[in-house]
């Protein structure tokens, strides 16, 4: 990583979902190298997922781990990693709108960014036309 002071992110998810999401963010919003990295759980046990996350996040600095299922192996590994890492936050239910917001606003303070991203992700889920 360079001297970039923004929040970093890792997307950890089942199958090829993380790679596809990060690729989509890169094509829509553009991404600098190392800002948002994908990780698949394919072939990895719980400790291996946790170790791979730790390797991507390094020793410190604010970071968000985005994952698909809170109760899945990715979500559990992320939460285990973050137990003693106050500058790391796990966001579950990852979707493309929240990742785009992350890419565009990641220089906000971590807590403000997390609040904003979670709102953005929730608000992106709509039924159209809406209920009468």
């Amino acid at each position: 990583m360079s001297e970039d002071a923004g929040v970093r992110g890792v997307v950890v998810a089942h199958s090829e979902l993380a790679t596809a999401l990060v690729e989509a963010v890169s094509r829509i919003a553009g991404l600098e190298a190392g800002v948002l990295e994908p990780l698949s759980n394919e072939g990895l046990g719980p400790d291996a997922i946790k170790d791979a996350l730790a390797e991507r996040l390094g020793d410190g600095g604010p970071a968000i781990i985005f994952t698909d299922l809170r109760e899945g192996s990715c979500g559990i590994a992320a939460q285990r990693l973050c137990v003693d890492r106050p500058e790391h936050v796990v966001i579950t239910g990852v979707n493309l709108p929240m990742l785009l917001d992350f890419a565009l606003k990641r220089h906000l303070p971590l807590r403000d960014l997390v609040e904003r991203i979670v709102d953005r992700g929730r608000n992106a889920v709509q039924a159209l036309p809406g209920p009468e």
Partner: protein
Amino acid sequence: MTVVLYRVDERLIHGQVVVGWGAQLEPDRIVVVDDVLAESPWEQELYAVGLPPEMAAEFVAIDDAIERLPDWQRSPERIILLTRDIGSMLELAEAGGLDGVRVNIGGVHHAPGRDPVLRYVFLGDAERDALRRLAARGVEVVARDVPGARGVGLDELVGDG
């Protein structure tokens, strides 16, 4: 009802178990047999927090599980029993509790000394030996990650076929 699924899965409670097998088997309870988790309340909470309300979770050490296995097998509840590794399931079998049952191999992942056998099963000599010993205890060993996937029997798993 009984124990509706005996499964070896390093990931323990996760999507394949809760969503995949859970939807098909409709378990009332998931029993995780694991000495480490049995002593770690905060990790138990991590694993249990995402379960649907109709599905309970319990975390039991292996020695306790050996004692309680007959009760689970006669229980009116539908139970999924999980172990993290083949060796733990083998301990239950060697205590005499698994004769005639089918054990599902759902996830034994990459580690040093293990070779890929299936996308979700990596085995080394120790794991192959444990699988053979399970079979010798009257257990039918079948690898299948999710319902509907092809079941892979012992011979194909350990290379004896």
